[in-house]
């Protein structure tokens, strides 16, 4: 990998990671980040949060440092809300503080700590409405939602359609950009899920498909097909989602990168 040149992350045709046209208050968009158990997306989520807070993903850039180029928003409210079903607030505090993003720069909604104890036995619509209630309406803001599909397992009887209609769609309307992080581990096993009649498997597949159709862009992280390598962690594939034509002035730049994550740094390379 030493011979290859590092690349900067670009998602949109205006050379941006999150275009300024996305959170202008007139549209509600979604970006989908998919990953496997072997390639967890911590660094990518951090980079997207960094882009929103500091203006660019400095942790992925070679030529810039946040101290010199960072341009924080002049808004008093945080531009970004992070909600996670699998990590607590401490986890994000630690990760983002390394990128010089303070606790005041983002809002955290902890959907992980004591979620089961507090919600088990409640009606599913009540649980969903309680979760939705913890997000404020702000069409200029961004929400990062980590692993909402786990609700299909945690709430008895919840279907993928209900999750999409009751939770994802209303949440999209509460913000300018919703970034959904979801696992696609299901598709990486050898089991032929296409022919299955298992309700759980079908619900998970349908949910991922529904999110893909609603998305402007899909960022997919997966390991190399050849297995583990010392100098490559996996591939980042950027593709258009089902709603890619919702903004006429910009389009998603489809691309595929190799990336290497070591300790707390990630480098991108062209494939």
């Amino acid at each position: 990998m030493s011979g290859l040149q590092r690349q900067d992350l670009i998602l949109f045709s205006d050379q941006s990671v999150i275009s300024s046209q996305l959170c202008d208050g007139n549209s509600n968009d979604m970006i989908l980040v998919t990953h496997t158990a072997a390639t967890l997306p911590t660094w990518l989520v951090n980079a997207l949060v960094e882009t929103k807070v500091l203006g660019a993903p400095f942790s992925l850039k070679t030529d810039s440092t946040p101290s010199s180029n960072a341009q924080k928003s002049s808004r008093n409210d945080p531009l970004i809300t992070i909600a996670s079903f699998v990590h607590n607030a401490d986890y994000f505090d630690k990760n983002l503080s390394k990128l010089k993003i303070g606790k005041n720069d983002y809002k955290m909604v902890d959907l992980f700590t004591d979620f089961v104890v507090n919600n088990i036995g409640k009606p599913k619509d009540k649980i969903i409405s309680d979760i939705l209630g913890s997000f404020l309406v702000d069409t200029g803001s961004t929400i990062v939602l980590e692993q909402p599909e786990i609700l299909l397992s945690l709430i008895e009887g919840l279907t993928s359609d209900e999750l999409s209609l009751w939770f994802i769609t209303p949440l999209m309307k509460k913000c300018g950009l919703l970034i959904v992080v979801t696992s696609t581990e299901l598709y990486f096993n050898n089991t032929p899920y296409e022919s299955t009649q298992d309700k759980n498997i079908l619900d998970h597949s349908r949910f991922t498909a529904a999110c893909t159709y609603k998305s402007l862009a899909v960022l997919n992280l997966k390991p190399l097909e050849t297995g583990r390598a010392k100098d490559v962690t996996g591939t980042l594939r950027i593709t258009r989602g089902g709603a890619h034509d919702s903004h006429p002035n910009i389009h998603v730049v489809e691309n595929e990168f190799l990336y290497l994550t070591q300790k707390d740094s990630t480098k991108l390379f062209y494939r």
Partner: protein
Amino acid sequence: MSFRKRGEVLNNGSRGQAAVPGRVPLPTRGTTSAGINRGPASTGINRGLINNMRSERGTGPSAVDRMRNLSLRGSSPGISRGPTSSQADVPISSVEDSHPGIRPSPATSQQTTSTGTKDLDKLLGHMGLPLGTSLLMEETGTTEFQSVLAKIFASQGIVHNRLESTGSTPGNTHVIVLSLNQMFAKELPGIYKGSRRDVKKFKIAEEQSKVSVSNLSESKAPARSNDLKIAWRYGLNDNKPKKDDDEVLIDEHKNYNHQFDITSRIIPAPTLNEITFISPSQNVQAILVQMEQTIQKHKDKIIRIVVPSLLHPAMYPPNMFKISTILPLLHGLKSLTKKYEGSCVLFASVSSDLLDQFLLTQIESIFDSVMRLEPFDQTMLQFLERAYKSQPNKVQHGLIQILKLPIFSERGEMHVIKSEWAFKNGRKRFEIEEWGIPVEDNDEAASGDNCSTAIGDGTHDHSHSHSHSLEDSTKNTKVSLDF
């Protein structure tokens, strides 16, 4: 798959402190203070101070409590409500750095505790399991190696607890077992005390150290000179300092992990002050509430949560096999482990053949680290026994696959490592070593019983035994590579 030389043990064959018989005897309650004082002077002093501070607790907030309050974590925001959310404001406990069962991870400096298996500690990349993280040990087939690891994990906690537990002090570790099997406590392995010969020697040395007329008359000469009467010159070394640098390093964390003998039992058996059983047959909320109450009751201790044989049909009610029941339970357990991340670790073992692939994938997604034991089938074991005919101790029992490693995988690093490590379980220890396919001698290959039968699909082709020896060896090589 690697083709390295066979049989290189992870720790280069050295068993460290615990391997030396008698060096780390299981301290009984009466001898704990002696065990503590054996460490470095500063540590001993600190621990003594902490014990003194602990003894003051009855009269009001002690210095330890005040210090602990300085490192509190904030309450969890979000939608957490109800009685437990108010408990989130309660200080999240963290254990003193002087705890003999924790040490900083060499990779991330995070506080880490031992799984009780030294090789597994190394494989995890942190010399143990970092506090606040969880490990799932899967096993394919019908063998029970995972339950051995679960018992050793629990046993290590009991041994740590007894290092500091006396009548007045409460100990430093508590084990919570989510299982119906109350016999689990009585089946925990005891510390390995050496081979029979070593035990005998230790007993003799113990007898000789006692004050008696005969011992006093013999005590003028060093014991070693009795063994080496002819080579008297060796006796000159007796007065030299025995510790080298490596030993000093080991001494720094000498009670961090121990070597367990799975044929022995820990004596005395753990009491209710050391181990708590929670039944998995209750509803999920009751299990989680009971678990949190136990953690809060032992808030100054390291809490080892053990879930042996998760979803074993004999212990778990049928409704637990529903994804909407088992996932909330595991999510709740993980939440507790993170909520009390200064003191909690979670170890679960599961027989993966009992579960369908989707459920297993969902369970794996909950844990911070996942490993899979894949025991060899009978034909492979026969092949290994033939290859290691002269060294039967080298026969491995299966492969250990790494699917996730704590902290590293969460950062986004790719740590799926398959077919690179093999394990073998013995009376003395559970060893993990680099896997390499052993080479069968040509003479043996030509003798007719070739390894292609051993590691193939199990069907024996009689025509092979009549074929040319060169052809046989070529086939052997081919099969080995394919495997």
